[in-house]
């Protein structure tokens, strides 16, 4: 098999060549115009942009659209190339939402590990006061990259869950726009490569928030951070659009909105935020890019610009983004609890609507990140009220989860353990929120490690734990095998206590006066012992993730075979064989006739599945609607 038959290899090759061409072109052009050529930034940025576009051509994500534009026919839903081994299809453009979902998932796990590695490096530095082995600039770059690469990892993880699960759960054969789906995945790769290349281009020291004026004067790496985020954001917007259309138009007959599996509600609410808010972070970063490249003084006080304006634009996306990170995870928790408690989901409609409520309120709270920023003082109190309102729909979820567990018949295999762990961790994240949302107490807590602990709890409880639960739970659906239970439990019991120690330690040093994002801290504050404990806990978490990775790789080939409805779920995807057939329900159309979570009700039926002999019911989407 030829190495360059893999789309990924072609894409990366094209990106390298494209970048070189872009840099050369812009340098020559600038030289021709008599502009200083030794100023690398314009040429480097242009090269980065051309390289990203070249990747998309090289990987083949634009091939079909190019052909269509020139009037050529393209295959409706091309089958995988039979000459290639099965694994190879994951390294090139596929239009199958399940392949794309797994591609997202692998990308997410790789980025999680990389961002975690950055954290381990600077956590080791923080064990003692003084600088041991990092320079302040390298510390700042690693800290900033940890944040943004984690965010890219979470966004791709969200893409993994939405893409793999939504069509399966609503009875569709694929997403509404399969080519757009492939494009939205692949654009993450050049985006992530641009982000990571910043490490070798002087780095950047602003944290993931990129506030000017600091970001306007940071090294060249800053521009690659901006470009990387811009491109990953494009994936979010297009992915969100695809999910919305898929959910609205491709549900199985009889599946009214309130009969959808609850995860679909969460994915839908998430997609609404992605489609409508992501533009603002792209815009705000683009404005700083242009300030640097063209001297447009948007945020330059010397040119009449306003630095606080940036923070409004940035947080208008970046707060709702937090709900992009957590809503799918909370959907996973709601999805799995009834299966392992053998009880209906308590208050289905309330949980479904609470996702929409969180998504909606999330748009009105952004300025709570700016209580100390120096924005108009009268804005602080209204934003405090709106912020604290988020607690209400979030509370509804917690209480409903408890209602689901109550009087169930609870079993705790690995996925359920991660669900329960996620609930407790997210509870700590949720409860540590209101003190920051209240202006008076936030004046003390803002920009301290208390905040660091708070958001690690929300991100782990809202994303990481549920993501692990989802992997353990749907792994048999993806591969036809199940992951090893003993190793899964080892992963859980190693990670969970270490995680509590880590975030509670972070909150504790924060209350003692430890500031966020500092490479070194004052010995007089007496923080070293707690920092040591936090670092040890971080390494334990990393160890548990190694156990997980081993289990994952090992189980793909050698896991116990699990072809049927392993968890005795009522959800549609478990009524077809594992691994799921290429066209999902082709030949097995179903009609929804009952409620999704009627566990414990004798004779209750959720769906009636036909077979090849039964004709498709009218309106059933068997072919991709494109």
């Amino acid at each position, binding site marked *: 098999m030829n190495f360059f038959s893999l789309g990924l290899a072609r894409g990366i090759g094209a990106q390298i060549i494209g970048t070189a061409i872009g840099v050369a072109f812009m340098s020559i052009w600038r030289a021709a115009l008599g502009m200083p050529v030794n100023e690398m930034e314009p040429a480097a940025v242009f090269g980065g942009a051309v390289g990203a576009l070249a990747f998309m051509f090289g990987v083949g994500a634009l091939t079909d659209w190019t052909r269509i534009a020139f009037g050529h026919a393209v295959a409706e839903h091309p089958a995988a190339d039979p000459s290639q081994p099965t694994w190879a299809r994951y390294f090139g453009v596929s239009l199958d939402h399940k392949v794309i979902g797994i591609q997202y998932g692998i990308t997410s796990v790789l980025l999680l590990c990389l961002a975690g590695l950055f954290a381990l490096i600077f956590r080791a530095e923080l064990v003692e006061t003084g600088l041991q082995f990092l320079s302040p600039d390298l510390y700042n770059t690693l800290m900033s990259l940890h944040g943004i690469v984690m965010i890219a990892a979470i966004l791709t993880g969200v893409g993994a869950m939405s893409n793999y699960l939504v069509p399966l759960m609503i009875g569709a054969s694929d997403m509404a726009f399969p080519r757009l789906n492939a494009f939205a995945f692949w654009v993450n790769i050049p985006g992530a490569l641009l982000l990571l290349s910043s490490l070798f281009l002087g780095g950047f*020291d602003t944290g993931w928030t990129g506030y000017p004026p600091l970001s306007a004067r940071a090294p060249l790496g800053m521009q690659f951070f901006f470009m990387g985020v811009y491109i990953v954001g494009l994936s979010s917007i297009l992915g969100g659009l695809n999910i919305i259309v898929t959910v609205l138009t491709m549900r199985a007959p009889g599946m009214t909105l309130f009969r959808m599996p609850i995860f679909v509600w969460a994915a839908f609410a998430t997609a609404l935020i992605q489609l409508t808010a992501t533009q603002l972070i792209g815009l705000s970063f683009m404005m700083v890019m242009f300030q640097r490249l063209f001297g447009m003084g948007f945020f330059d006080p010397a040119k009449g610009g306003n630095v606080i304006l940036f923070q409004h634009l940035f947080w208008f996306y970046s707060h709702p983004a937090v709900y992009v990170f957590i809503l799918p995870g909370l959907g996973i928790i709601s999805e799995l609890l009834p299966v392992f408690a053998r009880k209906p989901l308590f208050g289905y409609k309330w949980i479904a609507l609470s996702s929409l409520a969180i998504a909606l309120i999330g748009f009105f709270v952004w300025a709570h990140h700016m209580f100390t920023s120096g924005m108009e003082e009268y804005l602080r109190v209204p934003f405090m009220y709106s912020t604290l309102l988020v607690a209400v729909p979030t509370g509804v979820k917690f209480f409903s989860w408890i209602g689901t567990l109550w009087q169930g018949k609870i079993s705790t295999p690995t996925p359920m353990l991660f669900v329960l762990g996620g609930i407790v961790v997210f509870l700590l994240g949720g409860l540590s929120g209101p003190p920051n949302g209240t202006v008076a107490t936030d004046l003390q807590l803002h920009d301290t490690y208390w905040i660091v602990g708070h958001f690690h709890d929300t991100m782990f409880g809202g994303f990481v734990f549920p993501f692990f639960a989802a992997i353990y739970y749907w792994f048999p659906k993806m591969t036809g095998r199940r992951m090893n239970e003993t190793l899964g439990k080892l992963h859980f019991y190693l990670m969970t206590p270490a995680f509590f120690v880590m975030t509670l330690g972070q909150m504790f040093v924060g209350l003692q006066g430890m500031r966020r994002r500092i490479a070194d801290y004052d010995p007089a504050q007496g923080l070293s012992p707690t920092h040591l404990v936090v670092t040890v806990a971080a390494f334990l978490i990393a160890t548990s993730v190694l156990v997980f990775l081993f289990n994952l790789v090992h189980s793909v080939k050698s896991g116990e075979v699990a072809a049927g409805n392993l968890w005795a779920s009522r959800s549609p995807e478990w009524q077809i064989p594992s691994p799921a057939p290429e066209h999902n329900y082709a030949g097995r159309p179903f009609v929804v006739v009952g409620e999704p979570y009627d566990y414990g009700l004798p004779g209750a039926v959720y769906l009636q599945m036909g077979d090849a002999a039964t004709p498709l019911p009218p309106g059933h989407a068997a072919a991709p609607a494109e």
Partner: protein
Amino acid sequence: MKHLIAVGILVALTTLGVAAGLRALPLAPIAASAQAGPIDALFGLHLQVIAFLFSLIIVFMLYSLVVFRRKPGDASDGKHIEGHTGIEVLWTIVPLGIVLYFAYLGAQTLAEIRRVDPQALQVKVTARQWAWTFEYPGDVTSGTLNLPVNRQVLLKITSKDVIHSFWVPEFRVKQDAVPGDKMVKDLVITPDRIGEYKVRCAEMCGTNHAYMEAPVAVMATAQFDAWLKQESETPTDPVARGRRWATKFGCIGCHTLDGSKSVGPSWQGVYGKTEEMADGSKVVVDDAYLIEAITQPAAKLVKGYGNLMPATIGADLTADQIQDLIALIRSLK
């Protein structure tokens, strides 16, 4: 019903235990301002509610996990309960009331800690990479924030370059320092405990952010007045004047006076030395070089150091002030 009674008792006990545990922990540095009282009180109230809600969810969850555990060999489902509208409304309305009450308390506390005393002492705070400068009435400039005890101080905070944030953990309040002509932000503090603290920059501001600290001294009023009087007289000694300008214009944020390494070359022992420049040339550090280095910082950079000095600093200084700075540098053997 017996389950609910058992859980109710356990929730109450756990709440008391968690709340007592949180109270026993030293959760904040010493409080040293009048503003700290209301803020700490509100945070304490938050912690009590946190203790209750944490216990409520955790106890229900753990109790369910133990009592409603599936027995081995039991393949049947749990009880078919789809929900209960009354209880959903209840657990929407009650939290709504609680958060609105907390928002109200938060607004009350905010109003209380922002109350400005017309007699307040005004201090202008200027942040720059990576130093703090404090300017008092009577043209006194200091690198240490000296404050009289029990008198309110109104800080007028601004920045020369990027965003910084003024924070003294013992005072409990924080305000970003923002660059821009009209970006002067107010912060009210009433120090009420004599002692020494530190301003710690709380907003990421670049390479030396971690070290952007300045000493704070809260002292008796008489002591403060004496210090202010002494400082308001311009010293006759050029070295002392140079020291003052080095503080006022933030030079000491990057150039140490004691030979220790920082982002700019230390001034100790540098005068008369032959230094290697970034382009490999050798330069003797004399008056002419120092004047050039101050007025055109990028012209000749010492090897190993970046071009970080504000280009406009030469315009901010008078020729006499530059001479005073050179006198200071010359004196640092």
